């Protein structure tokens, strides 16, 4: 279980204090709704470790992640864009999730092939990321989630801008991945339909405070 307890954050030169408390069970998708600038992405930055909380705690089961550095947190994050290195192939982009020197070993390459099949991109292994469509790029990013198998998945409006059909496919894929891999998924969105389709629970950021709906 992922527990976020009394997490607080203050931006420099601003009076507002952002307050977050929530929990996410394994295989569960929790959606965060809120207006632009309400502090939804700040929550993801705090969980991922890009921002340091002024107080509170982040715990995954028995492990306290609050003071861990970004690289030590068991997290994969997907942004709205820039999730891939455009000059690398699909295969290398996925391998980077586990193998930084990009030395191909048979085991990893086979694994990438299997994962690409799972996300419906088996023919694109050696295609440059820059030549993929927006939807395909996000599929590759999801393939990397599967490759990494980190228990926390953070989604920062990753499907905004995709056409309705692709968007629905991607949401279903997220749901499948979450359930099959016991992930704790937090999805920031401003689309209520996304929530209705895959979220188990919904939180809303109101007056800089996270409230369960």
């Amino acid at each position, binding site marked *: 279980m992922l527990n976020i307890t009394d997490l607080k954050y203050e931006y420099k030169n601003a009076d507002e204090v952002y307050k977050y408390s929530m929990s996410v069970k394994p295989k569960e998708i929790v959606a965060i709704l809120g207006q632009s600038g309400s502090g939804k992405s700040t929550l993801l930055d705090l969980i991922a470790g*890009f921002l340091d909380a002024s107080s509170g705690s982040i715990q995954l089961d028995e492990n306290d992640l609050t003071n861990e550095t*970004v690289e030590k947190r068991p997290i994969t994050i997907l942004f709205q864009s*820039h999730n891939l290195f455009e*000059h690398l192939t699909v295969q290398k982009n996925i391998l980077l999730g586990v193998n930084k020197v990009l030395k191909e070993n048979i085991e990893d390459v086979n694994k990438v092939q299997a994962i690409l099949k799972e996300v419906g991109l088996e023919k694109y292994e050696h295609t440059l990321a820059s030549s993929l469509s927006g939807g395909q790029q996000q599929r590759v990013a999801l393939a990397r989630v599967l490759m990494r198998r980190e228990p926390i998945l953070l989604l920062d409006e990753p499907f905004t801008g995709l056409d309705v059909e692709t968007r629905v496919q991607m949401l279903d894929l997220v749901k499948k991945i979450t359930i099959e891999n016991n992930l704790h998924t937090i999805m920031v969105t401003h689309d209520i339909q996304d929530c209705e389709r895959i979220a188990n629970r919904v939180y809303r950021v109101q007056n800089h405070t996270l409230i369960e709906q």
Partner: protein
Amino acid sequence: MLTQWSRFRSSLFPGALVSILLLSFASLLFFILFISQDDARVTQFDPRVWSLLKFTLYQAFLSTLLSVLVGIILAWSLAHQSHFKGRSLLVALFSSSLVLPTLIVVFGLIGIYGRNGWINQLSLYLFDYSFGSYLYGLVGILVAHVYLNASFASRSLLHIFESIPKEKYKLAKSLNFTTFQRFLYVEWPALRPTLLSIASTIFLLCFTSFAIVLVLGGSPAYNTLEVAIYEAVKLDFDIAMALKLALIQLAVTTLLVVFSSNFRTNLTNLKTSSTHIPWSEAKHIKQIQMAIISLFALFFISPLVVIIIDGIGADFGKVVSETLFIKSFFTSIIIATVSSILTVIFAVLLSDTKRNFTLKNRLEDNKFSKLLNIIVSFLGNLYLAIPSLIMGLGFFLLSQRYEAPLVVWSTIALLTANILMSLPFALSVLSPAMQKTAQRYDKLIFSLNLSKLQRWVYCEYPYLKSSLGYVFALSFCFSLGDLGIIALFGSDDFSTLPWYLYQLMGSYRTSDAAGVALILLAITLSVFILLPRLFRGTDAKHN
């Protein structure tokens, strides 16, 4: 399509006129250079010319390599250290390297690394040992070129580092990249597309470098084509030799400009940013980055400090009361002001015409648009292919053929060279800004049926104000510090501040030279740093 052309007629004609003017000038220059080569020696390629060409290419290659390497390392350090005190001032100073008069940079470098410079004096005091005059020759040329161009490269590259999406850094961090992997996968791919363009600009600047080689070259073994042209005209009065060298130089620079594929000059506005990269560096990396910044800052600032300290010690009463100083001062200011105003006007007109050929809702779809865009761009960047000393030679030959008072030819030559020298940089600032304004407001302006004047007053000017101020300041400083054309036309009757400073340095009046160098430095930095700020305050913003 005809209605499209007529709708944009008012923005096509002025730019077309400027283009025709530039084209006529280039044709006239080529014509005068070619009809003057009536000496058989012009076509002979003797060993002296070959060795000049080899050394010119060699020093430009080394200077470019070193400048780009130092530029990358410095920009990388600055990008990751965005919160130390004085950072924005330091970045602004590095940006000013582009407009610092090369002669005062040389003066400052001699003050540090010269025979009687600070380093030798310190070494003599501490160890009773002098390194001698190691600055003259290839070392001095490289040091001065790296001084001016590494800071220029770092400023352009810093802009690239700061433009890398923050998500890329966050992604790399969450994937547990090392500093090297971050550079390899995130930063290098962003830098690579711009590097060729930056390197080719620096190569051209070093290939045609004049004042630095003239003063620091030391002996004929370290002469470049540009200096050899000057010596052939001014010292030997060997016009045939000067023509031969000019034609070789022209051939090489034209090739370089064509092969560098586009004419971008990679100039970003002076605005300094302290964008925070979401990656806190390990302690030892932070120390390395701060050491790199400190070392380069020391290397960059120390010659300026020498100019200030030596300048303060000068007898200003005596310096400013000299007739030649007063003449040089006013000539410099008047020429710089007039040429900057004309540069701004030409750049606006050319950018206004150029955007017709690149915007979808204008004439982009026309089959001639691509070609016309290339022609206008090339003409605006003529200076990159025709260095100022060759322009000077052209005007010099014209003055020999068509008699007129020397001051008239000198003024025309200086104004033309200064405008052409500033235009590539002016266009690289104004053209994207004007393109953006048209992209955003064309439909609105056409639907409101605003006149050309109303469009300018209500839309273009408020958005372009700071860029216009920057271009004016840039052009003013370029003109103020140039020692190219004036080296051929300079005399006691017609002189500018850089020429006067060169004369003082040549006659070993070091104290007076220090005073003039300080005045030049003060004017340049004040205009370049303060003037754009005056315009920036009320600038409208694109959302």
